[in-house]
C-alpha cells in the first residue's frame, strides 16, 4: 500500500510539473490574443488609458468627474512619467499586439510614424460627433493620406519666452514684458543679441542668459511649416535653410557662453530653476506649470512671460482609440469628451495646457487667463497670439522626435564638450542618417 501511494504521489508530482511547464509556455503565447484591458461586465464598462507626462486628465480630476457623470463607467489610467519610455513600450505593444490600452496617448513627435505605419490599429475618429472644433492644423497632424483620423487633439504648445525680471534688472535690461518683447521683436537673433548685452552687464557671472541652446533651436524650427521632412516624407534637414539658420544661431549662443549648458527636463535643469542659474528660457505654454513647480514659491513673482520673436508650436498630444478595444464606442465617447472645448479650457486654467480647440480659444477662461506665479502675465492673450502665428500647415516626419533629440545632443557637443559647430554638425548628420535611414 505504502509503495503504491508513493508511486501515486510521484506520478502526481510528475504530472503537475509537466503541466505547469506546459502552462508556462502556453501562458506566454496565450496573452497575445488578450484584449486591451477594458471590457463590459455586470453592466459596468471598464476603459483603460495609457498616458504620459502631465496630460492632466488624471491629475486634475477630469476622469473622476467623467465617472461621476457616467456611473456605469470605470476608467483606469496608467501614466508614464517619461514619453520616451512610454513610446518604446507602446511600439512594443503594437508590434506584439498585446498589452495595449483602450485609449493611448500620442505625442506629436510620434504622430507621423504612427499614422504612417500603424493606422490600421487605430479607430478612425473622423466621424465622431462634435469634434469639428479643433485648430485646422492640429487634426491634420494625425490624419493619414486616406483621410483617416487616428487621434483627437489635446493641447498644443505655442511658445513665448519666460524670463526672470530680477535677473534682467541686475543686468540692465528692461523688465516690463512689453519692452522685453520689443527687445527681440520679429527676429530670434535679437534674442541672442539681448543675451550678449546681458552677459556684458551682468553683475553675477554665475547666471547664464538662457538655459540651453537646444531650447532656442527648437523654437526656431517649430515656427515653420517644413522642418526636418518635406511633404513627400523626404529628409530635408541638411538643406532646409530653416534648420541651418537655427543651428547657426543656437551654436552661436552656445559658443558665446550665453547658456547654462543644461538640458531641458534632464538632471540639473530643475535645480537650475530653483537656484536661479539662468535668466530666461523659451517656454511653450505647458512648461509654465513645470517652471512654477520646480522654481518654487520663493521665486514667485520674479518670473514673467514675454512674447517670443516668432510664433511656434512645441509639443502637444492626441488621444487615439485602439481598433482592438472591446469598448470602442465608449472609449470614443470618452476621448471626445476629454478633448471637448470645456475640458480643454478647464485644463488650461488648472495646469496651463493650452487648448487645441478653436472654440476653447475664444472662451473667457482662456482669453482672460492670467498667471499669478508669472507676475500676473496675461498668458491667455500672449499664448493665443502666438498660437495664431503658427503656420496652418505643419509637415511632420516619421522620425521627428528622434531627430530633435539628436540635434539637442549635437548642440550639447558644442556647449559642454567644446566641439566646433562644424564637427558637431558632421556628427549630427551621421547620427540622423543612422537613425532615420
Amino acid at each position, binding site marked *: 500500500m505504502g509503495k503504491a501511494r508513493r508511486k501515486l504521489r510521484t*506520478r502526481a508530482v510528475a504530472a503537475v510539473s509537466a503541466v505547469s511547464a506546459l502552462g508556462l509556455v502556453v501562458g506566454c503565447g496565450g496573452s497575445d490574443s488578450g484584449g486591451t484591458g477594458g471590457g463590459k461586465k455586470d453592466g459596468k464598462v471598464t476603459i483603460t488609458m495609457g498616458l504620459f507626462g502631465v496630460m492632466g486628465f488624471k491629475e486634475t480630476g477630469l476622469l473622476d468627474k467623467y465617472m461621476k457623470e457616467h456611473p456605469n463607467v470605470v476608467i483606469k489610467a496608467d501614466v508614464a512619467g517619461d514619453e*520616451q519610455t512610454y513610446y*518604446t513600450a507602446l511600439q512594443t505593444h503594437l*508590434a506584439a499586439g498585446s498589452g495595449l490600452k483602450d485609449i493611448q496617448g500620442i505625442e506629436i513627435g510620434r504622430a507621423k510614424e504612427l499614422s504612417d505605419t500603424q493606422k490600421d490599429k487605430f479607430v478612425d475618429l473622423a466621424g465622431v460627433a462634435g469634434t469639428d472644433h479643433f485648430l485646422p492644423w492640429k487634426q491634420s497632424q494625425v490624419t493619414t493620406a486616406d483621410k483617416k483620423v487616428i487621434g483627437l487633439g489635446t493641447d498644443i504648445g505655442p511658445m513665448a519666452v519666460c524670463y526672470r525680471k530680477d535677473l534682467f534688472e541686475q543686468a540692465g535690461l528692461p523688465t516690463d514684458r512689453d519692452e522685453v518683447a520689443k527687445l527681440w521683436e520679429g527676429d530670434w537673433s535679437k534674442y541672442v543679441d539681448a543675451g550678449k548685452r546681458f552677459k556684458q552687464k551682468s553683475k553675477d557671472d554665475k547666471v547664464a542668459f538662457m538655459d540651453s541652446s537646444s531650447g532656442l533651436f527648437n523654437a526656431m524650427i517649430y515656427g515653420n511649416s517644413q522642418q526636418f521632412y518635406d511633404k513627400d516624407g523626404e529628409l530635408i534637414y541638411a538643406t532646409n535653410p530653416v534648420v541651418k539658420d537655427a543651428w547657426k544661431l543656437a551654436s552661436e549662443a552656445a559658443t558665446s557662453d550665453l547658456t547654462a549648458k543644461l538640458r531641458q527636463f534632464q538632471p540639473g535643469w530643475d535645480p537650475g530653476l530653483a537656484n536661479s542659474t539662468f535668466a530666461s528660457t523659451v517656454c511653450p505654454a505647458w512648461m509654465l506649470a513645470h517652471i512654477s513647480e520646480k522654481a518654487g514659491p520663493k521665486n514667485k513673482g520674479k518670473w514673467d512671460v514675454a512674447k517670443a520673436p516668432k510664433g511656434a508650436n512645441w509639443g502637444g498630444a492626441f488621444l487615439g482609440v485602439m481598433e482592438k478595444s472591446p469598448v470602442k464606442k465608449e472609449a470614443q465617447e470618452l476621448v471626445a469628451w476629454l478633448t471637448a472645448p470645456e475640458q480643454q479650457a478647464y485644463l488650461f486654467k488648472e495646469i496651463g495646457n493650452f487648448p487645441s480647440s478653436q472654440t476653447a480659444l475664444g472662451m473667457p477662461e482662456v482669453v482672460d487667463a492670467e498667471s499669478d506665479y508669472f507676475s500676473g502675465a496675461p498668458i491667455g492673450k500672449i499664448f493665443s497670439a502666438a498660437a495664431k502665428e503658427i503656420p496652418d500647415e505643419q509637415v511632420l516626419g516619421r522620425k521627428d522626435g528622434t531627430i530633435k*533629440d539628436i540635434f*539637442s545632443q549635437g548642440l550639447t557637443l558644442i556647449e559642454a564638450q567644446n566641439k566646433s559647430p562644424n564637427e558637431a554638425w558632421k556628427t549630427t548628420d551621421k547620427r540622423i542618417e543612422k537613425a532615420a535611414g
Partner: protein
Amino acid sequence: MAISTPTTPDGAPGAAPPAGSGTGAERQRRSALLHRLDVRGAPYAFVAPFFVVFAAFSFYPLIYTSWISLHRVELSTLNLMEWVGFDNYTALWDDDRFWNALLNTFTIGVLSTVPQLLMALGLAHLLNYRLRGSTFFRVAALTPYATSVGAAALVFTMLFERDFGMINWMLSMVGVDNVDWENNKWAAQAAISTIVIWRWTGYNALLYLAAMQAIPRDRYEAAAIDGASRWQQFLTVTIPGIRSTIVFTIVLSTIGATQLFGEPLIFGQGPNGITGGADNQYQTLGLLLYEEGWKNYQMGRAATVAWAMFLLLIVLFVVQRVVKRVLARKA
C-alpha cells in the same frame, strides 16, 4: 524517447502477459505499462520544466535573434522582413560606434572590476578576522547588492550632478572646480564604475570570505611559526587558497561588465542615457543594442549587436580557458 524502449531492467512481473489474457491480465499489463512510464518517464518530467523554460526563453530567442540579424526589420513592422544576409554584420564592423562602444565597455569594465575585486579581497580578509557582530557586518556588506540598479544609479546620478551634486560640493571645499561628470569622458566612466563597484564589492567579498573560511587554520599557524607576518600570510596562504574563487569572480565580473547597461542608461537619463552621452562617451555595447533597437527601432541591427556580444563572450571564455591551461602547465 526512453519511454518507448521495450526492455525494463526492473520490469514488473507480468510485463510479458501470457497468451489469451482476460480482463485481469489486461489490467495487469496496463499497470505494468504505467509503472514503466513512471520509472522511465518521471525523471524526464521532473527535468522538463527547466528544458521547456530554457527552450522558450533562451534557445528560441537565440535562434530567432540570429534569424532577425540577417534581415532589415523595424520594431513597428516586425512582419515585414527584408533579407540582407550578413550586411548587418559588415555594417557593424565598419561602424565606429561599435568600436567606440566596445572600447568603452572594456574601459568601464576594467575601471569597475579591478578596484572592485581588490576591495572585495581586502574586505573579505577583514571579515575573516574574529570580530564581534561579524554576522552584522556580513549582512551589511551584502546590502548594496540587494538594492536595485535603478535606485542605486539614480542616487549616484544625483550625487554626481554638475551644479548642485554632493560630490562636486565636497570637491569645491578642497578647491577643485566643478567637474562636469557627465560630459567629461573619463569622469563619466569613473562615475559609472563607482555605481558598479558600490553594488558588487560586498557580494564578491562574501564569496571570498566563504572560500577563505575553507582554508585550514593550521596553515596559518604553520606560517606564523615560520615567522610570516599578517601580510605575508595573506599573500602566501590566503591568496593561493582561494585562487579558484578569484578566477570564478573574474569570470562573473567579466560577464557582468560585458552586459553593463542599467547603470549608464540611468546615469545619462533620457536621450543621453540611451546614446551613452552626447558624444557616446560612455556608451556600452548594451546601450548600443538598446539604441539600435528601441530608439532607432532597427531590430535587425540590434540583433546583430546582440550576437556580437555573444560571440565576444565566447571568445573571452576561450581565452580564459587557454590562459588557465597555460598557467596550470607552468605550475
